[in-house]
């Protein structure tokens, strides 16, 4: 596209029309890919060309304005380029304003960070446009702090909005921050609460990072808000957005590498100032020059062979352990520590003795609090609890499940009960051979076991593995270690673990309301039920469990928390994998058909990506099931 220079008054509206028509037909990239770099060069120093460019975009008819503006924003490499190309279009044209301030920020969320940077930078570069910047920030904050947005919008959109907020903050100058300080503070307080309420760790982290950044901006002196969370690439990227290097003039022949320079946040290097003042710390050589006479020889040492490290003995009997743990013997903390460390192995070595006092021991362990600072206290306690539960499953499971629904336990304790039940179930259902016990992920055993996140072929692999591990081979082709099979100990107790947990979920207590505020525990409960269902394969109770689980899922299927919904979908997966196909067909056909239509809905309409994926998995599993049944003769 060539322009004829030289003092002619030409009308550009024809060109604008062409541009607009091309863009609306979806050819933005092609035409702007050529146009934008050329315009960039031309407008770099020449004001007339800038005016021409502005006229060009202003003349695009309204019905095509959106496509053109979108194309320009995406095509321009930097904020100042965009500023040169569009001028004050956003102020003059209503449609452009809508696209830039509303549509691209709040309604769409697929644009790259660089596009966000150039868009918001563009708004900040001119004083007329800065008012728009403030307005944009306010609207972004409103969305960020709205409870329903946090609950219902997809995590990708929330990430996008957080990035936009951080970039806006980085552009604001001090007087502007002062003027909207109050609003920033209120939105931050409301928003951080909604974010921390969420069950998804990613959203919690997003909320924390944004809140910290806002607090940093508004409190330049004095204490700043600081959260504790694990840093990962996402948080680091977000934090780097807060620091803006000012746009500098670029040699026209190198348009692209400054974008990456801006993205590298210019974090000030903290000088390594923590070296202690080096006082003379040289070690003198061991042999002194001028050897001393060894006049210590006349002192004869005594026998010191008994000198070993002092070890406090742990009690050897279970009842002694109980005494130490419950006693008011707060004096002998060494003994208490030694007992805690030795408890799990003692329990496993003395099953008969443990069975006599199992419920009492379970009670003590559930309420045990850390008296001294032992490393790994939480894990030691959990392993002892699992040992007690596997030694005497039925009474202890009864106790634990009843306590799950009792008054006056903390959320942490209730979730501990769920973890212990899962670990014990896993242990009971695994055939016992050496060297094959799965490592216990102490924090979240649930996530390790969920098969739903694998591809749909994996269920076959899992089933095959299980079959292989449970059959006994008469003739071993190669030299395998012959795997001994043994009865599945989980069989007799699966129902005791499962049914009491599912019983009272809809009965709120004063301090514990699963269907209300405590949706985090509900999420964990649902995931626990999924695992128990999965482990109950080949047990007698599996069909009854399956039916109960299906009803449970049906009741909760519209829950607003996405973590809960993910759990419900894993329940369906476990069900489809564990309950034998014939039983599903015989007893649960109608429910399954209803579930299938619900799953179809979830695949299309659910806002959470993981939920959609799990629902798709389940539909595939159902298809496989149908095919399998068709193969078998009826």
């Amino acid at each position: 596209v060539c322009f004829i220079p030289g003092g002619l008054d030409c009308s550009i509206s024809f060109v604008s029309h062409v541009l607009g028509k091309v863009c609306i037909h979806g050819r933005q990239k092609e035409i702007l890919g050529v146009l934008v770099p050329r315009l960039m060069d031309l407008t770099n120093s020449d004001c007339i060309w800038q005016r021409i460019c502005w006229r060009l975009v202003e003349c695009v008819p309204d019905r095509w304005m959106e496509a053109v503006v979108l194309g320009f924003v995406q095509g321009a490499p930097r904020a100042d380029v965009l500023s040169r190309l569009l001028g004050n279009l956003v102020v003059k044209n209503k449609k452009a304003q809508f696209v830039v301030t509303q549509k691209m920020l709040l309604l769409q969320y697929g644009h790259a960070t660089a596009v966000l940077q150039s868009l918001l930078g563009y708004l900040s570069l001119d004083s007329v446009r800065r008012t728009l910047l403030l307005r944009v920030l306010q609207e972004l904050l409103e969305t960020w702090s709205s409870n329903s947005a946090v609950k219902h919008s997809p995590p990708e959109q929330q990430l996008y909005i957080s990035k936009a907020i951080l970039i806006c903050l980085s552009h604001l100058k001090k007087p502007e921050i002062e003027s909207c300080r109050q609003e920033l503070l209120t939105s931050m307080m409301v928003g951080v609460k909604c974010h921390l309420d969420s069950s998804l760790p990613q959203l919690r982290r997003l909320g924390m990072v944004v809140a910290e950044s806002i607090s940093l901006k508004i409190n330049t002196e004095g204490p700043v808000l600081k959260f504790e969370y694990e840093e990962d690439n996402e948080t680091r990227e977000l934090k780097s957005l807060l620091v803006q290097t000012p746009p500098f003039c670029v040699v026209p022949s190198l348009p692209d590498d400054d974008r990456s320079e801006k993205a590298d946040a210019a974090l000030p290097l903290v000088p390594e100032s923590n070296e202690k003042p080096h006082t003379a710390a040289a070690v003198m050589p061991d042999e002194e020059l001028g050897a001393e006479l060894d006049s210590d020889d006349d002192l004869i040492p005594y026998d010191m062979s008994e000198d070993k490290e002092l070890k406090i003995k742990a009690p050897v009997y279970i009842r002694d352990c109980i005494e130490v743990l419950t006693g008011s013997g707060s004096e002998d903390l060494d003994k208490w520590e030694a007992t805690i460390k030795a408890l799990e192995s003692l329990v496993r070595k003395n099953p008969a003795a443990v069975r006599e006092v199992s419920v009492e021991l379970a009670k003590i362990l559930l309420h045990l609090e850390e008296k001294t600072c032992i490393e790994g206290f939480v894990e030691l306690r959990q392993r002892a609890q699992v040992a007690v539960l596997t030694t005497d499953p039925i009474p202890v499971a009864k106790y634990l499940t009843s306590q799950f629904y009792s008054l006056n336990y903390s959320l942490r304790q209730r979730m501990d009960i769920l973890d212990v039940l899962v670990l014990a179930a896993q242990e009971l259902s695994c055939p016992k051979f050496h060297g094959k016990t799965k490592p216990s992920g102490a924090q979240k055993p649930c996530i390790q076991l969920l098969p739903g996140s694998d591809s749909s072929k994996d269920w076959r692999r899992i089933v095959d593995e299980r079959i292989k591990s449970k059959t006994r081979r008469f003739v071993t082709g190669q030299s395998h270690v012959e795997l001994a099979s043994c009865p599945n100990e989980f069989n007799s107790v699966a129902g005791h673990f499962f049914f009491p947990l599912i019983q009272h979920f809809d009965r709120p207590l004063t301090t514990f309301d699963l269907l209300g505020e405590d949706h985090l525990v509900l999420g964990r409960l649902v995931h626990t039920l999924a695992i128990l269902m999965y482990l109950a394969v080949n047990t007698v109770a599996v069909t009854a469990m399956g039916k109960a689980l299906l009803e449970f899922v049906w009741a909760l299927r519209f829950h607003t928390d996405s973590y809960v919904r993910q759990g419900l979908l894993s329940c369906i997966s476990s069900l489809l994998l564990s309950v034998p196909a014939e039983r599903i067909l015989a007893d649960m056909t109608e429910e399954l058909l209803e579930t299938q239509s619900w799953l179809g809905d979830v695949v299309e309409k659910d806002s959470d990506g993981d939920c959609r994926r799990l629902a798709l998995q389940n539909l595939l599993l159902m298809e496989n099931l149908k095919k399998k049944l068709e193969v078998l003769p009826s």
Partner: protein
Amino acid sequence: MALPPPDPQFVLRGTSAAVHTLHFSCGGPEPDTPLLFSGSENGFIHVWNLKTHRVDKALDGHGRKSVYCVETMGGKDRLLSQGRDQRICLWDLAEGRTSVTDSVFTEHVGFCRCSLLKVAQGRWLMAVAARSLEEVQILELPSKTSVCTLKPEVGAKLGMPMCLKLWQLNCGSQPVLLAGYEDGSVVLWNVSMGKALSQLVCHQEPVMSLDFDSEKARGISGSSEKVLSIWSLNEQQNLQVYKTHKLVSAGISDITIRPDKKILATAGWDHRIRIFGWKKLKPLAVLDYHTGTVHCVSFSDHSNPRERLLAAGSKDQRISVWSLYAQT
């Protein structure tokens, strides 16, 4: 074939509380009874008669708060005691009296034992940890005037002073203070100028106790970790690490070198007393009598070397008295 470790010569019972500090006073001429002063957790100072092995007197001057330091000031008639009631009491015990003649309110809430040094007839210098976190105050007794306050420089982050030792090379020279701090370093201070001469990081954990041999210009410090650190002082008044010795168990409450500088004793958290030769730190004996942490060890000041004793006080409320290497 090495002999098994000896048994205590005798054991003093009757404090009915953990023993935190011990001090002998046996140097007097013959008709004087050798005495052992002990401070306990229940606030009492017991005066033990080492001939009858019984308590002669029990002094109650610290409001039932634990006494963690006792020292005599020139003879057994004047006693100084430091307790957790933030006070240092000076006692007059002559002719059967048991009265507190004077007291210093230190406002120190830690466990740092004070250190006494006689600088002239009737005049002592005392180093105490002061009220402010990192400072050590030097007072002159009996006038109780402050000589100086030793403040580490800003940002040094030494923590609390844990143990102190005042000494001077000989009678006329300048008094110097060795202080062990919470961050594991030992600092040498010049008392008259109030300046630090040298600092050495000896341990990773707080220095629990130290002792110094001014003749050899070498000292030893124990900490809550498993290492004993021996350091020396060179002519430029700089501290340098000389040697370290690894122990079997962690934790040393007290270290003391015998007045003849031949052996030293350590009191351990693992209930044991260890004896080492001072020249080369050769392990000599492990005395395993107590059933609780040993809080303090002390050598006696008998003029007759054959009568020398070692006493150890423990959390199990007993004081064991040993006679070791008395022939050398």
